[in-house]
């Protein structure tokens, strides 16, 4: 039994392998980029707009409001990074409805790459927001004794991000694989639906955790007025796609 799509190799030349993870990741990126380009090609502000534009607007505005709720004052600045994370992880699990597809997030290398990009992005956003000294000072708050623990938490939460996403995706594929050998008729479909649900929840959790980490790194000292309560659809993203 395959533990990850890494072991599904399409093409090999020497030590250069083209495994399923790479192929599906690039396919996914292609779909996301081309889809976004196609949808945003003719945007309108009229009353009649395409349903794809409506979908994209719903996604973007609810992501903005979610990021704002976490405590980031200027959500648009972080929308590119966090939104990409959410869309990639979400689409990776949503595409499991296509037969023959394996989510690239079911491979530890993909999730490790995503978590590492979060790990790099958090200090970058922190330094951009508070300056070098201000960001480094956050490591020795409240006291200097906390310095090693802050550094450890920086590493361990990256590990946790990677392993959490990997474990959830892998367990979904694994459970379906095991059930196919035991009860091959109806039950795997139910578990696939459950896998879609957990995939969406994991995408939400991954991006919201990244937002929380960035918010913790960029927390400004000056008190800002409480943001107005976000109106409209604030429920988690399960229904969103």
């Amino acid at each position, binding site marked *: *039994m395959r*533990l990850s799509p890494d072991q599904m190799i399409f093409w090999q030349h020497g030590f250069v392998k083209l495994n399923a993870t790479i192929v599906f990741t690039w396919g996914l990126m292609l779909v996301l980029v081309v889809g976004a380009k196609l949808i945003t090609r003719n945007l309108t502000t009229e009353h009649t707009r395409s349903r794809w534009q409506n979908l994209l607007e719903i996604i973007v505005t609810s992501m903005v409001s*979610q990021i704002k*709720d*976490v405590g980031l004052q200027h959500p648009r600045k972080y929308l590119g990074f966090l939104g990409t994370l959410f869309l990639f992880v979400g689409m990776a699990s949503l595409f499991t409805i296509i037969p023959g597809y394996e989510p690239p997030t079911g491979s530890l290398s993909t999730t490790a790459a995503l978590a590492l990009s979060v790990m790099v992005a958090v200090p970058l956003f922190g330094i951009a927001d508070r300056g070098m000294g201000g960001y480094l000072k956050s490591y020795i708050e409240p006291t200097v004794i906390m310095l090693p623990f802050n550094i450890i938490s920086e590493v361990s939460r990256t590990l*946790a991000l990677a*392993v*959490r996403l*990997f*474990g*959830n995706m*892998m*367990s979904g594929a*694994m459970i379906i694989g095991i059930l196919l050998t035991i009860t091959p008729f109806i039950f795997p479909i139910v578990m696939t639906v459950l896998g879609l649900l957990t995939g969406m*929840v*994991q995408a*939400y*959790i991954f991006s*919201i*955790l990244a937002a*929380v980490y960035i918010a913790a790194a960029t927390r400004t000292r000056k008190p800002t007025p409480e943001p107005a309560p*976000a109106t409209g659809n*604030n*429920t*988690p993203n399960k229904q969103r796609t």
Partner: protein
Amino acid sequence: MTIIAVASIVTAGITTGFGTMGPALAEGRAVSTALTSLAQQPDASPTITRTLFVGLAMIESTAIYCFVVSMILIFANPFWNHVIAETVTK
């Protein structure tokens, strides 16, 4: 060789079994508390729901760790691979 296989499989079962026990209890407590506060303050539902999801993810990651460890024990066991490599070279 058999001992390694038996130990790995038994340990994998025990790991998942006991490893999900604690998170299950913890998640039950978290969800019940969140439901109580949702019933008391429906206005704060976005905040409560978001915090609940993040907290559940944190709690659940411990169970996921146990699951990953047991999967490694079953499907990618380093000791087992070592023994197999030794018997092949013999």
